[in-house]
């Protein structure tokens, strides 16, 4: 994947990298399980300090988008966001029906979980 940084921007360099990975995951360009470049390699290629890349990877880990493992580098764990509008519409109907039937939120959630098994 392509990484770019603009040194003239006000946004810190690590934030620029974080934003690109976020977008990559959301759009599905970075698939679940894909490996991000080794921090040293990416730092060399972009001519930035390796700690800049490591900081970006740590932020991504804290956001749950990548998994950092010794020896394996940064692995993408986030998944692409599918279009959720259909789910949201159906949920509004479900909530209305559940209230009419006097179901508690927990009971409704249990019903959904069981139905999805």
């Amino acid at each position: 994947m392509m990484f770019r940084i603009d040194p003239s921007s006000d946004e810190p360099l690590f934030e620029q990298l974080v934003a690109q990975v976020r977008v990559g995951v959301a759009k599905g360009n970075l698939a679940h399980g894909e490996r991000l470049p080794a921090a040293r390699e990416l730092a060399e290629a972009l001519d930035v300090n390796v700690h800049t890349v490591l900081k970006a990877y740590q932020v991504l880990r804290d956001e749950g988008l990548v998994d950092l493992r010794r020896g394996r580098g940064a692995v993408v764990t986030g998944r692409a966001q599918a279009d959720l509008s259909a789910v949201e519409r159906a949920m509004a109907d479900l909530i209305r029906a559940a209230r009419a039937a006097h179901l508690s939120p927990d009971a409704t959630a249990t019903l959904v979980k069981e139905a999805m098994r």
Partner: protein
Amino acid sequence: MTTGILLHRRFGHSRAGQIAISALCGLSLLGVAAGLALSWRDSLPDPVATHWPGDGGPDGFMSLGAFVTVLLVTGAILVALFSAIGFFGGRSAGARRLSVGLNVWIGGFLGAVLAGSLWVQRGLADASGAVTPGWVLLGAVLGPGVLALVAVMLVPADPRAPASGPLAPGVERADLASGERAAWIGRATIARPAVAILAAVVLATAAAAVLSRTWVLLAVPALVVLLALAISAVTVRVDRDGLTVRSALGWPRTRIPADEVVRATVTAVDPLRHFGGWGWRMSLDGSGRTGMVLRRGEGLAVERTAGRGFVVTVDGAKDAAALLNTMAERARTPSGS
């Protein structure tokens, strides 16, 4: 050793010279072995054993003259083939190295098979009692391999050839603001069919070693595993310096400086049709392009100065090609303008 020194000192960057010397070297290794074999004529059985099925005694026999002739002719044909490939397609040092290495290796391999398998039969009255020369085969594979490696390493790298003209017209570029830095990094892993073939070779050679109880032969599958690891995965990197392709083991690797890029494009690669297999390859179309070919499908093709070319199979090659073109253009523009 002398091959390398001669290549380096006497022939420099002459393609024909390098190929000719490596061919002579391969053939003379085979010739020396043939001379040795014929000098043992009086102490060898007639016919001599020429083939061992793997466990126990030999199952193939030939007269000494026929055995020597068969190996000499085989060697001559293969050396001529490898030389022709290097001569007509060896525009880049990488392509010539393949040809030089194969010439030296095949001559040494066939010579060692000839001399080694006859050496163990000296003094025997009947060749059917000859023992399986497992160590001979191992030495025949590894010994010339070392010689070939030395010869390959002494083929000088291509001289720097920065482009004098502009980038080829109409190529894709990445849209980068001036001052913006960018890098494209991708990984490519080897395809299943290649893994299956390599696994079959490893199993077959390991089984042969175990069945014949010649444990020293286990070095052959070990070597194949090492080679397989070397071509199992590569990192492809495009940055301000150009293109770098590096195997997971660190070797083989190749670098194309940005100012030697004429045009980078996306290409569709068929390993068997275009390159005759997987790994570090030379194109079959006679263009002299070299390639790191790991699977079928999308690849990054780079046309470079001095008529050279390179292909690497990798996903997302479109973005990589666009960025490489942009970096090639930047390398041609004096900084600050």
